[in-house]
């Protein structure tokens, strides 16, 4: 019996020691960052810790929707999140973001004016842009002889079995909406049904719905054409020089991922310091080298070599940008319709 008592006491002691250890750790200054997978140069965390003494706890998610689910569920505490445009406006509408204190973010002045006050955050109180890019068509010039200029290529039976399509509802519907000449932010049910019908007709000529598998399929010559993000197109073209990237004439989607602070963040000031740090010229350049997405930090853009600055895939010219449309958050009824149509399409 004595043994049991001493065992219980020993366990209690270790538990107490462990708990106090945890408590001590919490006193240390930290910032909890939640970002897309593979979307940052992790080497910069050390620099941030050296400069500010704040440790970065870094975790990753795979989609805006996952981020939203995690935030909505509660029970976790993040200080910096990096959602995309339409998700930011949704989070703002639902009161899930903190207003930023721009006094702590002097480097906001480095951001190009073009990327301030965008539709998703019109007064720019909640977000600081981190990366941006456009969607386009990537195709293999050795497999497709015609010059591709339009979204119609994705729906052309001539390339049956060689076409890839996005495996997420918003991006996939957007390819159809652009082709039909409608806004990607439409809430008109007739237009959405028309786009859906187009996707239904496209399904038999598709090789598949893909996200990151598109890399292997296009690089390896398994598929000939598919839509994806510009930064990723550059990476694919490095491995297969036959690949080309075009911005369809009907226009395309411009996406911006921006840094925000969720409501109730425990380390708001640390978060602002981190956001400020991310807008530093040198840090922005390091991140851009890893992500291959364009940076909105003007001073970083100016520091790039001429070849990169003139790369029209990474930094499209104004005439292209003027044809672009940013996703807005859709009303709940439309979101439900998207879900319903997407499930019907995929099943």
């Amino acid at each position, binding site marked *: 019996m004595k*043994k049991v008592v001493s065992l219980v006491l020993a366990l209690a002691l270790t538990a107490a020691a462990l708990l106090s250890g945890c408590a001590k750790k919490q006193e240390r200054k930290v910032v909890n960052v939640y970002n897309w997978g*593979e979307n940052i140069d992790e080497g910069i965390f050390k620099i941030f810790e050296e400069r500010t003494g704040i440790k970065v706890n870094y975790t990753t998610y795979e989609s805006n929707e996952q981020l939203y689910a995690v935030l909505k569920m509660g029970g976790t505490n993040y200080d910096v999140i990096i959602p995309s445009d339409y998700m930011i406006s949704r989070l703002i509408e639902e009161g899930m973001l903190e207003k930023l204190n721009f006094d702590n973010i002097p480097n906001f002045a480095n951001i190009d004016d073009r990327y301030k006050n965008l539709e998703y955050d019109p007064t720019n109180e909640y977000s600081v842009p981190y990366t941006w890019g456009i969607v386009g068509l990537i195709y293999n010039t050795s497999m497709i002889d015609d010059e591709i200029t339009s979204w119609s290529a994705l729906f052309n039976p001539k390339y049956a079995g060689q076409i890839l399509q996005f495996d997420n509802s918003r991006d996939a519907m957007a390819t159809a909406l652009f082709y039909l000449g409608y806004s990607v932010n439409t809430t008109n049910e007739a237009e959405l049904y028309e786009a859906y019908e187009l996707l239904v007709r496209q399904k038999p000529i598709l090789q598949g719905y893909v996200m990151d598998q598109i*890399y292997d399929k296009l690089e390896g010559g398994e598929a000939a054409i598919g839509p994806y993000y510009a930064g990723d197109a550059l990476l694919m073209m490095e491995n297969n020089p036959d690949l080309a990237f075009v911005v369809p004439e009907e226009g395309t989607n411009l996406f911006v991922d921006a840094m925000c602070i969720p409501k109730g963040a425990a380390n708001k000031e640390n978060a602002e310091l981190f956001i400020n740090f991310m807008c530093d010229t040198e840090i922005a350049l390091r991140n851009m080298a890893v992500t291959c997405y364009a940076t909105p930090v003007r001073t970083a853009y100016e520091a790039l070599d001429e070849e990169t600055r003139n790369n029209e895939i990474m930094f499209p010219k104004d005439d292209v940008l003027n044809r672009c449309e940013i996703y807005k958050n859709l009303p709940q009824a439309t979101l439900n319709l998207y879900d319903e149509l997407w499930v019907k399409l995929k099943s």
Partner: protein
Amino acid sequence: MKKPSIFGRLLMALVFIFLYAPIAVLIVFSFNSSKSRTVWTGFTFDWYVKLFQDTTIMNSLYVTLLVSVLAAVIATVAGTIAAVGIYNMKRSQRNAILALNNIPVINADIITGVSMSLLFVSAASVLTKLSLALSQLFGAKINLSFDLGFGTLLIAHITFNVPYVILSVLPKLRQLDNNLFEAAQDLGATWLQAFFKVIIPQIRPGIVNGLIIAFTMSIDDFVISYFTAGRVQTLSMTIYSMTKKRITPEINALSTLLFIVVLLMLIIINVRQASQEKKLKKNSSRSNELNEIIEYTKI
């Protein structure tokens, strides 16, 4: 024994190809100099170097191993004790408990995951309200609440591991001679001594089996971790989060290393078992000789 037919051999070869070709491809592409998983661009060790510098992957590997080891050990202890208790119950009670024990095993992971995360979140919110009230009452800052994190992840893993341990220990208890325990007590052992020196060694294979199953279940798990890990990340969660861009070949490198470690462990265990069996055979043959001599002298 009859030699296998050509068809049999072909089938076996096919089975092994399907089992090991993916691993072979994975290992080959961990040495590919580009990020591509289809185009071979040259040989490199870069991904192995980068792997050890990648803090996200290394952290999640650490979390995965730590949670698997802790959960497996704790679940084994708890499961063994539970199995002994269940074994000594009345038949009707035992069947009822075993039925309850089987439900989490058969149940879909996603249901376990979602329900656990709901439980944790609601418990946390109740505690938040409680600590708020207590803080007001005592005028000091009291925080009893918690965030989803390593603690909740560990609890979840222990929870889904325990039934497997019980299922692997119980059969060993059934094989046990009921009189052993009493015999040990008759010979002067306390019940604790009898339990640790007689019962535990007898059911050890079941315990070890349970430990290994629990460890593999934990290391494998994605769905339950996904819902309960909060701000920490297991390896499978990290890999999943890479699917918008492209899963880096560092993962290939890591998988290759894990594969080699498991292979080495299997080889060592097999070699040791083989040598132990040899020794056992030698000993038993020697004791046979001894017996014969004794028999002989008796006559």
